[in-house]
């Protein structure tokens, strides 16, 4: 093929070579940037669908008494909200960011397996079509929580088959994405881009991808056993047939805890890019940051039962999982201390990405504090399945993962679109989000400590005041995200301010050596690394 001639290709590198037709461009794409964009747009769509469900939940919980919906529908909303946010919003957002940025950051022309990349994205819309369609089926969508504990989950109707098949598809998509990322990082780095010179974001994704490959098949196994229990007469989890409902929880959380870190490790990577940029100072303790991520990933495999302390484990089991869980605080602490040390002595400016990154460090740490508290088994006998836990995981997932995604969107949007976003509106979005998210989730700590269980559609009047405050915060936070969409649309289509190649004064790394917007094809010939080009030049650090 003529296109295989590298000389010709190089000469035309500045011309985009984008496929012209809409379907050619997006449906048949093998370009990592376009697929990254698809993932990000999909993720944002799911964020709003899941967010709408959250608004309905908060509306029903606005005051005591059942005003808006049947309890069955409420359970459907809590279950679907979690599934959509985890598998539809957070995970695809990180895969999208990985697709866009990993080749740019390691100097690769594209992902290693571009056609598989297309497939792993295009499975997702169909998976979610299947999942969301259950809402309109007789009997409604899944109502047993996103964890789908049997025997309750098996009481569902047709939705059991649909949601399990959807989860299988999501798992296949994630595994293919992970294989692609590992193959890209290990094989396609530019000459001189040693593993310990890679940006922390690339490292975080390399480790996350291994987690994905390790645990997505475990989830697939667990839900397949649910499927055969429901439709083919097996008794894996039926006590009456000699099965064990607790076994499901062990298998599920063996997937579920690494899954939690799949949703936060890339966030650590993003924050480790942004803070040095806006501190104008190299990241503190680069190697320690990489080892901390690896330690957290390792520990994630030996702490799963802390999700089930009240299930009735033997004393020795409770103690082991308590100690192992507490250990996670150490590498996580290292990360937080290193971020602060990166800021220390820097020359900081506070553009929107930096604001989100700082909010991430503070609020994720608060989520980490409640995490350490939950590790303490006797106290967790009180916290477990209460709103304290709801507050905990929303602090790490919303002000953790989601804030990191938003920070990264502001950080790299100029590189993607070629325009600067509106800093004023970005800051308005930030302040509105950061205040409302605390109004939304902080009172939930109080509710849980006072004794309010999670996943209830109605509650005693003692819980009324904080629930109302939380709901107000929820509506406010939800509305604030419309500003985010506005800023993105404005930046991509209407902004007059052209972005420079460098975009941010303190930015280092290969992605800042290509023009803004990044051309359709980049690094068709590998870049030559020069001193000062990378954020982490000196391997001894």
């Amino acid at each position: 093929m003529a296109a295989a001639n590298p000389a010709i290709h190089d000469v035309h590198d500045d011309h985009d070579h984008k496929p012209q037709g809409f379907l050619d461009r997006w449906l048949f794409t093998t370009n990592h940037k376009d697929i990254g964009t698809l993932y990000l747009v999909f993720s944002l769509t799911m964020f709003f669908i899941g967010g709408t469900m959250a608004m309905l939940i908060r509306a029903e919980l606005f005051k005591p008494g059942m005003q808006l919906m049947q309890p069955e529908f409420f359970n459907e909303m809590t279950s679907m909200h979690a599934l959509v946010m985890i598998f539809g919003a957070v995970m695809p957002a990180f895969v999208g960011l990985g697709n866009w940025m990993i080749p740019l950051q390691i100097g690769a022309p594209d992902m290693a397996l571009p056609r598989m990349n297309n497939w792993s994205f295009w499975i997702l819309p169909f998976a979610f079509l299947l999942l969301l369609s259950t809402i309109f089926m007789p009997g409604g969508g899944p109502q047993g929580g996103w964890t789908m504990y049997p025997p309750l989950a098996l009481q569902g109707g047709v939705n059991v088959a649909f949601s399990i098949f959807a989860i299988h598809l999501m798992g296949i998509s994630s595994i293919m994405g992970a294989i692609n990322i590992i193959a890209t990082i290990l094989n396609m780095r530019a000459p001189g881009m040693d593993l310990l010179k890679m940006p922390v974001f690339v490292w975080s994704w390399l480790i996350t991808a291994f987690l994905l490959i390790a645990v997505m098949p475990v989830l697939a196994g667990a839900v397949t056993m649910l499927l055969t229990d429901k439709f083919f007469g097996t008794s894996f989890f039926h006590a009456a047939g000699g099965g064990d409902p607790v076994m499901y929880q062990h298998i599920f959380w063996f997937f579920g805890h690494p899954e939690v870190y799949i949703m936060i490790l890339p966030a650590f990577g993003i924050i480790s890019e942004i803070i040095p940029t806006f501190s104008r100072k190299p990241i503190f303790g680069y190697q320690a940051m990489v080892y901390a991520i690896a330690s957290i990933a390792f520990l994630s495999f030996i702490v799963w039962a802390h999700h089930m302390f009240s299930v009735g484990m033997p004393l020795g089991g409770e103690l082991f999982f308590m100690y192992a869980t507490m250990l996670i605080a150490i590498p996580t602490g290292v990360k937080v201390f290193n971020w602060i040390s990166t800021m220390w002595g820097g020359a900081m400016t506070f553009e929107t990405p930096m604001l989100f990154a700082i909010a991430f460090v503070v609020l994720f740490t608060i989520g980490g504090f409640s995490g350490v508290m939950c590790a303490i088994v006797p106290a967790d006998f009180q916290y477990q399945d209460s709103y304290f836990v709801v507050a905990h995981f929303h602090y790490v997932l919303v002000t953790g993962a989601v804030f990191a995604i938003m920070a990264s969107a502001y950080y790299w949007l100029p590189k993607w679109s070629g325009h600067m976003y509106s800093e004023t509106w970005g800051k308005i979005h930030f302040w509105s989000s950061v205040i409302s998210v605390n109004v939304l989730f902080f009172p939930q700590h109080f509710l849980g400590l006072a004794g309010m269980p999670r996943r209830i559609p109605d509650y005693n009047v003692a819980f009324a005041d904080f629930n109302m405050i939380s709901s107000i915060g929820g509506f406010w936070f939800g509305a604030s995200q419309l500003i985010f969409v506005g800023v993105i649309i404005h930046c991509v289509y209407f902004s007059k301010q052209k972005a420079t190649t460098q975009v941010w004064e303190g930015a280092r790394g290969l992605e800042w050596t290509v023009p803004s917007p990044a051309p359709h094809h980049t690094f068709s010939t590998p870049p030559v690394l020069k001193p000062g080009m990378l954020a982490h030049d000196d391997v001894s650090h």
Partner: protein
Amino acid sequence: MAMISSVRRARRAFAAFALLAGGTAFANPQPWQLNMAPGATSISQRVHEVHMIALWVCVGIGIIVFGAMIYAMVKFRKSKGVVPAKFTHNSTLEAVWTVIPIIVLIAMAWPATKLLVDMADVDNSDMTIKITGYQWKWRYEYVDYYKKPTAVNFISTLDADSNRIRQPGSGLDPKSIKDGDYASYLLNVDKPLVVPVGVKVRFVITADDVIHSWWVPALGWKQDAIPGIINDQWTRVDVPGIYRGQCAELCGKDHGFMPIVVKAVPKAEFEQWLATQESETAAAKAAATAQVAPQPATQG
């Protein structure tokens, strides 16, 4: 060490006093409640202590970490004309902030471990109550009392007032119902679990259909009720009173509507109650037998 334990004893005594003085008012969820209540048993008070230790450790670390961050954000700004430093690591510092958290964690794990060992000790109980979770109610069986088997066995469900109000679109005011002076919406039952004060009660907990979780915050723990599995837990309630809780594991549409009420009464009162229940159960059984018995005669 001796001083610490005497301080702790004093604190416990104070907590018990506060509980007695306030009755059980603070054992159940209160409007604007910010923190975990110390509860009604020595175990629940120790749970509260472990919780408070963890909370204050987190607050302390938070002040240091966020303080350093705020200081950095104020001091090291480009607008102040700072020239960025070049340092990229500091091995001593990194070792320090790896080791110190380990020490802090051990300090938190130690009391927690001791407490957990005590909570797991269900031996030497004076009575046994079997709890079975159903969609969406609880069955309580008084298996034995001081080694004497009893036949007392009843179902406990959401009270009729709450049930009327909680129907979607009922338009009724959840604030309108009270049990005593407690606004009891969704935290009241038709028939509470009655337990004696000062007696070590062993609970064996299971479920019949799906997984439930039996949670009364004032007792200091929750325990999942799982079909096919029998879990055990124990309590010794120190203060008479009414302690309210709820199912804590999603169990279907009425998960939010299967409350738990524990009524702790003095031992004598309990024994009287148990005797009454026994005779009522016996009478009910006799009546049932009497109804069934004539049938073969008419057939014959």
